């Protein structure tokens, strides 16, 4: 239902869509995110349930940032996915949804995806010197050297800090 409205009001933004087990999913480009989110908010999708990401290392745009919305009036759910390549950033939703603050910090912490316009993009679950991003598929399961702090170059994540 909401997907038809997005198609009608912002034609061409939805690049892919599928429905599986009753969950409706749309994929949009990151340039269109804020416009679509503004529309969703107007249409009653006011509870931003979750923000997370999925890593697909073999893909050119290796991450999917995944948003889940719930419309409290109609109880309709929507999943929105934004593909991003490594090093690209996604516009932050903290302006519209206060709850996006910590969720985006967590995605940044676990995947290293940056959010433009986030007021305080620090790591949430791990410590500031933590090497790499734990939920990337190329991060070792045993966590590597947990005491690798200041002055050590991480063997993964191309030695980049943050």
């Amino acid at each position: 239902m909401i997907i038809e409205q997005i198609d009608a009001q912002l034609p061409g933004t939805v690049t892919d869509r599928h429905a599986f087990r009753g969950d409706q999913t749309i994929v949009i480009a990151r340039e269109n995110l804020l416009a679509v989110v503004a529309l969703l908010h107007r249409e009653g999708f006011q509870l931003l349930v979750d923000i997370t990401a999925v890593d697909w290392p073999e893909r050119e745009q290796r991450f999917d940032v995944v948003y889940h919305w719930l419309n409290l009036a109609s109880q309709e759910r929507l999943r929105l996915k934004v593909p991003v390549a490594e090093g690209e950033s996604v516009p932050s939703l903290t302006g519209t949804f206060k709850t996006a603050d910590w969720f985006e910090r967590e995605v940044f912490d676990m995947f290293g995806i940056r959010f433009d316009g986030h007021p305080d993009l620090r790591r949430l679950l791990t410590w500031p010197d933590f090497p790499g991003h734990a939920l990337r598929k190329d991060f070792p399961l045993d966590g590597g050297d947990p005491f690798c702090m200041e002055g050590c170059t991480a063997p993964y994540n191309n030695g980049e800090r943050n």
Partner: protein
Amino acid sequence: MDSIALSRQMLDGDRMIVNMGPSHPTTHGTLRIVLELEGETIVRATPEMGYLHRGVEKLGENLSYQQFIPLTDRLNYCSAIMNNVGYTTAVEKLLDIQIPKRAEHIRVLMSELSRVADHIVCVGVNAVDIGAFTAFLYLFKQRETAYDLFEMAAGQRLHTSFTRIGGVFRDLPEGFVPLAERFLVECSESIDELERLLTRNPIWHDRTKGIGVISAEDAVNWGYTGPSLRAAGVPQDLRKAQPYLGYETYDFDIPVGTTGDVFDRYLVRVEEMRQSLRIIRQVLDRLEPGPVMVDDPKVALPPKEKVYTRMESLIHHFKLIMHGMDMPVGEVYSATEAANGELGFYIVSDGGKNPYRIRVRPPCLPIFSSFEDQVKGGLIADAVAVLGAMNIIAGELDR
């Protein structure tokens, strides 16, 4: 670390830095809040978390679907069964299977028992933090009975791992139903006693009314779910709004508050306990004998006696353990109403034995993210009351 630098830099000013946690009696687990005080008024509160981060989601990517169940116990350890139910419901949605009626009833029964146990901890401990010790003791006797019931059914008190994909671990043992019946009567009496102690107690009113007030719009914007959202006046309960496990067939009400303050959250939780007891009463009345696991060798392990005597069952057992289930390729998000709010599991499957990505949406993370907003300008003693009413469970918060 930023916060330590901050405390050094601010030492000579009028403001004082107080570390609440990481191990402080009122933080219930390990979380740290750096409070910046002017006198006794909070100017800034910076929560720091991750002390209990075990990488549950990363571990889940390397475990099979069944092996993940024990990890869900360790999310909200005050109501472990509800996490088991939430996770297995998500996998069943991915597999598109329907579990037997009796398994549904047992799941509802155990979920509501854990909801009562969880609310007992939340309300009781919140009262202890504020200084009312007696209420805690009255209720903890009932919590003990609830845990005895978990032990009878699952063999474990805290880390139950009670559900399986396609049903529950085993049928209810003999003696379970009579003890549950007794629990219904005694727990309801204890809740009355609790209400006599607190609900009209002027000291309790002074400490909780007007503390942590939040409007319905703000609560939704902060991503609140569960009792905290309902206390703010939004009647959102997934058991009614998006029923699962046959919740639409039970008769129960959703308590809703008006101001969202600590007192309203207390009232909502107390009433939810009563409603849960109502649901348990109805489940006990409609329990009928029957299977508790789906009859599908591709999902459920065959019974042990068949494994030892029949070739076919032995093969099914071997295939299921070694190769796992035949998972469809796709992604699902499944949410259940846990004691703290919407507990969601987002599972991405690439058809392999292990989930490609498993995401736990903890209900208390968005609630806790509003902590600074809730306590700013208040007194340090109010921060303790707000923290208790949010019911932060660090295992679920940090995953």
